């Protein structure tokens, strides 16, 4: 089943073409790594596929309701006034999950991501990488049909990066969640079944 698709999408910023004729369909169970140099348009591609950025031309369509899609931004995006645990549980809470259960699931995800000791810390007390992992946990506990993560390992060391990937993989196998992960690290990209390399606005591989 198609979760999100782009047909001949062109995206321009002030006349500059960032995406030039993108054709991409993400189906249940797909796992993509998006690579490319800084400024090549990875983030832009993810935003289009997440349905958050309307293309200049062409069509981008979502096959599922937007709440079945989770997007983890490149820069830390936690609510600064809430603890790691509350941040991680927030998405569940909005869906009406009982506070106790939401907290339980969030704590589990945080432990898996190596943040078992930091559940009560405020974002400002966490490193950038830790904040990014809390954001991953927050997306993962929602068990979405499609998860788009922008540089989830960009600020992490090797072992933490591996932890994150393991959690994402686990999600993909358990819930058949499709993954679209932007990364500039070829080694990480190599772990994915499909790679999309961006250059000059086009997918080159």
């Amino acid at each position, binding site marked *: 089943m198609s979760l999100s698709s782009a047909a001949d999408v062109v995206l321009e910023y002030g006349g500059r073409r960032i995406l030039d004729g993108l054709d991409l369909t993400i189906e249940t169970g797909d796992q993509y790594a998006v690579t490319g140099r800084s400024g090549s348009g990875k983030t832009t591609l993810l*935003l289009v596929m997440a349905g958050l950025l309307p293309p200049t031309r062409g069509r981008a369509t979502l096959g599922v309701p937007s709440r079945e899609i989770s997007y983890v931004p490149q820069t830390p995006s936690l609510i*600064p006034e*809430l603890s790691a645990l509350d941040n991680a549980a*927030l*998405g569940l*809470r909005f869906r009406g999950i009982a506070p106790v259960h939401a907290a339980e699931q969030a704590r589990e995800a945080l432990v898996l991501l190596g943040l078992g000791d930091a559940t009560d810390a405020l974002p400002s007390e966490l490193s950038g990488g830790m904040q990014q992992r809390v954001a991953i946990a927050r997306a993962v506990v929602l068990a979405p049909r499609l998860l788009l993560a922008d540089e989830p390992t960009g600020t992490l060391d090797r072992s933490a990066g591996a932890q994150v990937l393991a959690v994402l993989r686990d999600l993909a196998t358990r819930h058949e969640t499709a993954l679209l992960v932007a990364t500039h690290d070829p080694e990480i990209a190599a772990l994915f079944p499909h790679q999309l390399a961006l250059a000059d606005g086009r997918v080159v591989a």
Partner: protein
Amino acid sequence: MTGAAYLMAGLRSRRAEWLAAAVAVGIFVAFLASLGSFVAQSRSELTVRAAAAVPLDWQVQLTAGADTAAAEQALRKVPDLVAVRAVDYARVPGLRSTSATGTRTTGAAYVVSLPPDYAAFAPRELRPLLGAATGVLLQQQTAANLAAGPGAAIAVLGGGSAATATVDGVVDLPAADSFFQVVGAPAGAGASAPPDNVLLVPSAVFGRLIGKAAVVHQLHATFRHDRLPADPAAAYDLSAARANHYASAVAGAALVGNDLGAALLGAREDAVYAQLLVLLLGVPGVVLAGVVCGLVVALRRDRQSRELGLLRLRGATPLRSALLVGATAGADGVLGCLLGLAGARLALRVALGSGARLSPGWTVGACVAGVALAIVIELGPVLRLVRRGAPTVQEAVGSAPTTRLPLPLRLGADGILVAVSALVFWLTARSGYSVVVVPEGIPVASVNYAALLAPALAWPGLALLCWRVTAAVLSRVRRPPAADTAGAVRDVRSAVVRQRRRLVARGATGLAVAIAVTVSTAIFTTTYDRQARVDVSLTVGSDVAVTLPPDSRGVTLDPTVARVPGVQAVEAMQHRLAYVGPDLQDLYGINARTVGRAAPLQNAFTPGSTVKAALARLASRPDGALLAQETLHDYQLHEGDLVRLRLQDGQGRYVTIPFHVAGVVTEFATAPRDSFIVANASYIASTTGSSAVETLLVRTTHPAQVGAAIRNRVPAGATVADTQSANATVTSATGLAAGNLAGLAKLTLGFGFLLAVASSVLALVVGSAQRRRTLVVVALLGATPRQRAGFLWTEARAMVLAGLAAGLAVGAVIAAELVKVLTGIFDPAPEHPAVPIGLLAGLIAVVLVGSAVTTGISARVMGRVDPARLREG
């Protein structure tokens, strides 16, 4: 990019920001300009009013043997002179009347020679009561003493056998004190008591009547008042200088009794009080307007910092950046000034009527201040740029705000300020709130500015206290998570607010100050207004009062004449004259149990007891009497003591009647400001054999209409007064007309409402803007618009409710303090501040509605997921 291009680009792309900043500057300019113009205008009105209240400007007394013609010649050369009249008088041993009922003789009396047009020349000196207004006139009390009226023959004792005259009319001398003043008496010697007996005669018969008595020659002069300087002190200086100049010109042949100067001297106190009012009611508002204006202008600073960074990258020097920013700020300022001038004109027109004009000095000053404020605030980022290099956009974003209290609170500044304020207040209270001291005869009023420290310190102290209390309360808000299947996430929202308590407390404090400014002004002016009304109804007697002259034998007022539609209560009161020893005093016979139905009563009227208790004591003692403090002191009387009064009986004979002191009274309906007596009407009726009623007090909510309806039902000789018609002419003891304060109140209240709403909107907009990113993130997590908005509503509710509660409390405290510190303004002093419920409800409603609308719009605007926001750090 050229400067002009930058300006135009800024104007086009940030229209809303420009407009908001310009409006903020405009409000500030409008407030400052209209308040300043109001001060300038009301000050000059003080001079005009003080001068207009003078019955006679100058009384020039010629020294023995002086050349009258030369003195008059010199007087006519004094600038701005309008007219001069010669007035002579002599003191004679007494007056005598003979009639069918017998012969009556007075003690020493004055015979005064007046020119025929004197009543037109000085209308405030003579008030015709009975008979003709010219010719031979008897003063009212003399007429009573002699039991004589128009047509009676009066003999002047010591004037020989030919010294008789036929009375043409009976008059009142309302300004007898100053008319018979001792000209040239040293200042502070005190006014001499006016004579009890006066006969006014045409100059043609004067010489024939007085025999060999010594004659005092005077020249009475009036001047133009419209050319006096606006400032009472300066006007006094001018008048005093002219008097001195004249005295030296006639080389000691005359002494000047400068009543005009004395009145202007008195107006200094009013001027000082007016100034204090502006300081205490206006300045907090203007400061608040400045702060709000600054904050609105500062809203653009973030963006401007970023744009400046870009400009720097493109090679702009700091000086060039500064010039560019200065130009945008200047443009803001100029636009703001234009809006402000229009606003100030409108405000003045609404507050003071169409005659009000902007004072050029204040207007220019306000504009300069507005532009300067805008430029200084917007140049802040440039200075930072120059000092620290590129601005760091990251700085404020992404981290939780600190929950620490600001430094002043950690140092306990709130407690210290409030404590010192309370101490100063207590000291002021101990000194009897003598904030303004006007030493007799010195043209400078001294102000105890230390007393103003109480409110001045209370403002920041209470504001900081609000901050502390709000933060403390918010830090305790812990909502246990409920089942929450709807995903309302109340516990999460309140956790966020708890973490943002410093910001919420700051916003609430700002709002509280804005509300407190309005609330304190509203309470103060309502209290003033109520006291002014009590003052007027005291002077009139009630809402409407029907009065006959005292001891009007043969005439009585029937209470039924006052029972016209719209009347709530009518009280009959006797008004007689009674001798306490040699003193003649007004005596009021009342029904102590019912008099309160129509007469204004306040505890201040009966020192040492509530007015209710005092009247109850009087009612329980048929022969009781309330006397003036002065009388009790002068005659060494105490409560329960016997006091014998001499009253006229129904036939006009004086009879001695025993009374017992039942208490003290300082003020009473229709009573004069000096000594008088209040007793039981039934006792007076039974002891004098006359139950005649001389006064009717009428309570109604439509004084003017009821007064008019009663006017054509009363017997001849009775006067009907009502508070509405009197309001315009009666000024309180401080001379500050109620209309004056009303103007100030309208200005402060109007801008206060505006600022209260602006503050709440501003605090909410700033709060929402800070949380834009949070709202976007929450939207990404699948929150519905309702759930998103909930995050803003929780905070808005906390801030607005805390701000409202604190604002009402602070406003009430400040108002109570102001009412006490400015006790001197009130006459009589209020028992407690009056609370304008309707106005406060309106204020609360306006703030609530404004906040709700702002939060609703913010939630809509900020909840949209803007991908650009997701890229920002």
